């Protein structure tokens, strides 16, 4: 309000003087005047209200003046309060610092008490040790020493500086002496107990070592004791083994058994003493014990293996085998069967070793797992690597690896020689589809790989799989290949058909063969059978290889499920087995080659002339001849009879799978050859009908002898028969192009014309005019 007043007062009014002065119009002046009057009235009323408020303001001023002294009082009070607060604060700080000091004092007091306790303990230990030693209570003494060793070294240092420093110094000296003395005594007692073979005493002192902080020494001393036991037992066992009579039940496996006893002994030791070790030495220390035991194990294994090599003449046998394999010399020939026992024994030794090492590994790894649960990854890795190295490179592993190395060569020799024998003694009973060698060879291979598998050594198994694959793929396949290469001799049946001259030849040749027979050359029949048997052999081989592979896979899975080998081993075996499977395919290829050979040498030369006879039967015939043909079939029935005779021999001599294959080849051959002769013939309307009948009979017959569908192979011929059966040339259009319906033409337009032209009653102009 003051503002608006001020504003108005400042300018006097809303209307400035200049504005008023500049007014010239009366009307305007009047307006201005009225506005000014109204303004004056407003101002007057405002002034009146302001004057009316004067008394209230004065009253308020009075009240304010009365409050003045009160305010001074309040200020004084406030100052007093502030002073008090500052004082209190200082006081509080004082108190708290005192509390802090008290606290410190208290904790120092506790420390002092602790130290006093420690010193008392120390004293107690000193006294205790001495009395315990006097009483030969070594456990108690060791417990005191252990207590002393657990004490804070600074406490001991401090207590020396105390008032009674000298006494304590002397006592400490005693204590240290006692400690040294105890160590010596325990060692001596332990050694004495060891010497007398007093197991409870040995174990008693074994438990004391860790109390004296002598973990390693304890374990090494204890291991020494255990090793001596192992050695003693092993020595006895070896002597027993060497004294074994040849006739005893397990005489042939006596060294493997001796090795087994050694391993079992060590395993038993681990079983028995691991709990004590774990209780008194803590987890993670088994490795140390095993390391000592393994050294003794290695020493004993060396002796056993040495004796084995010596008594079984292992190296000489190996060298003999090697020279046999290198030169194939027969001067110093080894009978493979004679190797059987030694091969079995070596694989058993290897298997026992693998089992033992797996046991050791499992035990130590689980012990490390507990002991290293707080350790860093690096420490864990290092521990496991150490274990791995110990197991992989210990003398035991090396010795067995060496034995297995020789074994593989000898097993290979065994396999090759046995297979050679099986091949040499190969016979085939009449009525048997395959000859004896196939079963024999696979029996041998299975036996050899099985023996390698029983060694539990993955590398050994893989090597034998590889060597078997090689033997089957090159050597044995070569044997079968050579038999097939001798070929299938042409049949005598064929010769008879060729007439009397050949019959004479036949007589002569059989006479000659009679002569040759005495010289050991197979007769025709035998040669034929031999060829068919070889074909069957090849097929069975390819099947047997797959069976062998499958069985080996199962065996290996069993082995893996028992925890032998890892991913790596699995991959290795898989790879070796897949190589074996590919050999199966090579036998399949060989089978196809043999079949092709059979088809081209035995089937085709016979079947072709029979089909060519079609040409000598006129198909340019009239009603009368057609009826005559009906009564006396001119060609197809005889052809079918011939085919039946030809295939009977193969049906009897070949496995059903191969026979199927052969009939398939036969039907293809017939279809192709028949097509050729048809295209060389001429036909009348009835001749076409005759051909259609003939073709139907033939297809009907062939359908009965094969399980494959043969309609497809005869599709072209069937279509040719259809064409040859037409009434008129243009009738073809009912079957051609858009009218062909479900029929797919296998003949080209040119061929259709060619076939149409075979009908003598069709005019060539009509055929030319056809739009196909």
């Amino acid at each position, binding site marked *: 309000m003051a503002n608006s007043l001020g504003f108005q007062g400042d300018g006097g009014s809303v209307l400035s003087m200049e504005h008023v002065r500049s007014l010239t119009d009366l009307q305007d002046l009047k307006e201005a005047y009225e506005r000014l009057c109204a303004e004056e009235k407003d101002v007057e009323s405002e002034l009146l209200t302001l004057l009316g408020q004067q008394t209230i303001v004065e009253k308020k001023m009075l009240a304010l003046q009365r409050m003045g002294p009160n305010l001074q009082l309040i200020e004084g009070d406030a100052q007093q309060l502030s002073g008090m607060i500052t004082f209190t604060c200082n006081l509080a700080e004082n108190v708290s610092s005192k509390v802090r000091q008290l606290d410190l004092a208290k904790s120092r007091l506790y420390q002092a008490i602790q130290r006093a306790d420690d010193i008392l303990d120390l004293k107690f230990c000193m006294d205790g040790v001495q009395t315990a030693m006097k009483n030969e209570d070594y456990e108690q003494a060791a417990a005191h020493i252990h207590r002393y060793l657990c004490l804070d070294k600074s406490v001991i240092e401090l207590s020396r500086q105390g008032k009674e420093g000298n006494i304590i110094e002397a006592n400490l000296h005693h204590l240290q002496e006692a400690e040294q003395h105890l160590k010596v005594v325990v060692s001596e007692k332990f050694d004495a107990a060891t010497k007398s073979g007093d197991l409870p005493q040995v174990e008693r002192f074994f438990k004391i070592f860790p109390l004296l902080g002598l973990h390693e020494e304890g374990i090494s001393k204890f291991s020494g004791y255990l090793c001596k036991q192992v050695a003693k037992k092993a020595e006895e066992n070896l002597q027993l083994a060497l004294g074994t009579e040849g006739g005893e039940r397990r005489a042939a496996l006596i060294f493997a058994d001796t090795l087994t006893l050694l391993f079992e002994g060590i395993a038993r030791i681990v079983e028995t003493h691991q709990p004590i070790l774990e209780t008194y030495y803590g987890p993670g220390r088994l490795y140390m014990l095993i390391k000592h035991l393994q050294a003794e194990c290695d020493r004993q294994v060396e002796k056993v293996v040495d004796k084995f090599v010596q008594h079984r003449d292992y190296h000489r046998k190996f060298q003999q085998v090697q020279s046999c394999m290198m030169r194939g010399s027969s001067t110093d020939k080894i009978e493979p069967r004679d190797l059987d026992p030694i091969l079995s024994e070596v694989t058993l030794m290897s298997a026992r070793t693998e089992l033992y090492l797996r046991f050791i590994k499992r035990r130590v790894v689980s012990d490390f797992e507990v002991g290293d649960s707080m350790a860093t990854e690096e420490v864990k890795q290092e521990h496991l690597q150490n274990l791995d190295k110990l197991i992989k490179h210990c003398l035991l592993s090396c010795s067995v690896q060496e034995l297995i190395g020789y074994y593989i060569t000898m097993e290979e020799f065994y396999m090759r020689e046995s297979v050679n024998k099986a091949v040499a003694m190969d016979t085939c009973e009449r009525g048997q589809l395959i000859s004896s060698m196939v079963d024999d060879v696979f029996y041998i291979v299975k036996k050899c790989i099985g023996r390698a598998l029983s060694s539990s050594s993955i590398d050994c198994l893989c090597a034998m799989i590889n060597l078997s694959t090689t033997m089957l793929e090159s050597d044995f396949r070569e044997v079968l290949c050579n038999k097939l290469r001798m070929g299938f001799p042409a049949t005598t049946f064929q010769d008879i058909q060729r007439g009397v001259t050949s019959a004479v030849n036949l007589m002569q040749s059989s006479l000659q063969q009679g002569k040759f027979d005495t010289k050991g050359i197979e007769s025709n029949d035998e040669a034929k059978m031999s060829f068919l048997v070889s074909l069957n052999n090849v097929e069975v081989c390819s099947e047997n290889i797959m069976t062998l592979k499958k069985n080996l896979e199962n065996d290996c899975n069993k082995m893996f499920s028992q925890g032998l080998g890892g991913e790596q081993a699995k991959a290795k075996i898989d790879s070796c087995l897949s*190589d074996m499977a590919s050999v199966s395919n090579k036998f399949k290829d060989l089978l196809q080659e043999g079949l092709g050979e059979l088809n081209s040498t035995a089937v085709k030369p016979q079947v072709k002339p029979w089909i060519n006879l079609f040409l000598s039967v006129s198909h340019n015939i009239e009603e009368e001849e057609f009826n005559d043909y009906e009564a006396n079939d001119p060609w197809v029935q005889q052809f079918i009879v011939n085919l039946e005779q030809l295939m009977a021999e193969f049906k009897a001599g070949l496995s059903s799978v191969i026979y199927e294959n052969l009939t398939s080849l036969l039907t293809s051959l017939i279809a192709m050859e028949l097509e050729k002769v048809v295209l060389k013939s001429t036909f009348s309307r009835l001749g076409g009908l005759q051909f259609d009948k003939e073709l139907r009979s033939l297809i009907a017959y062939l359908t009965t002898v094969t399980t494959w569908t043969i309609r497809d192979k005869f599709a072209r011929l069937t279509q040719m028969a259809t064409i040859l059966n037409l009434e008129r040339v243009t009738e073809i259009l009912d079957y051609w192009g858009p009218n062909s319906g479900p029929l797919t033409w296998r003949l080209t337009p040119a061929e259709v014309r060619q076939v149409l032209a075979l009908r003598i009653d069709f005019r060539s102009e009509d055929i030319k005019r056809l739009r196909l």
Partner: protein
Amino acid sequence: MSMEDYDFLFKIVLIGNAGVGKTCLVRRFTQGLFPPGQGATIGVDFMIKTVEIKGEKIKLQIWDTAGQERFRSITQSYYRSANALILTYDITCEESFRCLPEWLREIEQYANSEVITVLVGNKIDLAERREVSQQRAEEFAGTQNMYYLETSAKESDNVEKLFLDLACRLISEARQNALVNNVDSSLPGEGKSITYLNCCNFN
């Protein structure tokens, strides 16, 4: 298993004296590692690496064999199925070079005749201790018709090259064989009867 995703599969077997660095070469190539203080290999180890060359996936099956004598009968059994052999020696070890003829005799005896053999002189990072000069090794490799390469598994020198070059040669060899096979072996059985038919038509 045979339906895996690769165009070629080759088996490569590393052979040579103990301690010449076969395992390190394989580890370097397959895992990019050089593990120092490697213990001697036991028997054979088996690694797989698939590489791509000119858009084709090549699966390399690498067999790392133990050099020690007692594993010889195991390692020999792998020679025959090998497509390539990497005969390795240590350039700082005259002895390992002098044994090469013996290794070649083994290859002659056990490997298949089409095998490709590469001679590798390893450990060229230790050049100051070299005992076998490059020229001498090259001459030797030349007389035996072998490809020669010097490598360092430690420094990763030529390791990649060794295996990739080998893979390339194996591919071209495989292609050539496929070609030869297609020419001389007509499909057995039916194939032969077709040729027969052709000569008949001729008559």
